[in-house]
């Protein structure tokens, strides 16, 4: 269906254990920071994702040792971090999931959805404003 390199999430995404293989498709204009993470196995399943630093420059998630080992990521340069966007209605209420970022080892193209500390990060952080949206 495409010749883009596949990303492999061996455990799937949280709640989507069967969604393991994805391609990352640029979305929007040429300088758009957004991409669509499109599942290869489950037709029609895709997620809007964005590098977190575009909207959250202070966001520096740390992987726990087990997750870092799992991915064989030794430095931040090895990793691509993306957060999943929940498109809101109205759009101003669109949020990013900072609790469960996607982390991909750029060399092996293996990825995980990390689960960070729930006392520090939220699943619904507004993209266009500072207040979190009540889930």
């Amino acid at each position, binding site marked *: 269906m495409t010749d883009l390199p596949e990303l492999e999430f061996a*455990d799937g*995404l*949280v*709640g*989507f254990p069967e969604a393991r293989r994805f391609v990352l498709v640029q*979305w*929007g*204009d040429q*300088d*758009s*920071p*957004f991409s669509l993470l499109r599942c290869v196995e489950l037709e*029609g*399943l*895709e*997620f*809007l994702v964005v590098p977190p*630093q*575009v*909207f959250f*420059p202070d966001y520096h998630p740390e992987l726990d*040792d*087990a997750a870092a*080992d*799992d991915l064989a990521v030794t430095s931040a340069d090895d990793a691509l971090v993306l957060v*999943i*966007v*929940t*498109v809101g*209605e109205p*759009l*101003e209420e*669109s949020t990013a*999931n900072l*609790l*469960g970022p996607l982390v991909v080892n750029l060399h092996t193209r293996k990825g995980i*959805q990390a*689960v960070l500390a*729930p006392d520090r990060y939220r*699943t*619904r952080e507004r993209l*266009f404003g500072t207040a979190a949206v009540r*889930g």
Partner: protein
Amino acid sequence: MLVLTRRANQSIMIGNDVVVTVLDVKGDQVRIGIRAPRSVAVHREEVFAELARENQAAASPPGEALSRLRGMVPPRPT
């Protein structure tokens, strides 16, 4: 559901390599220690459920909303 009664410092095993130990009981709070291989992810259930719900909410956004979002993208930092 299997129900077992355990006291502080007693454990249960799940499979061959996951050990769940009751460390301490105080009122309605129980402190639990979990020893598991690194390949076994251990999460609080409500956190896992919240992430699953959010992934579900984010899955496959309608194309119409995506195209409207286009106009709201902030400039890329240089």
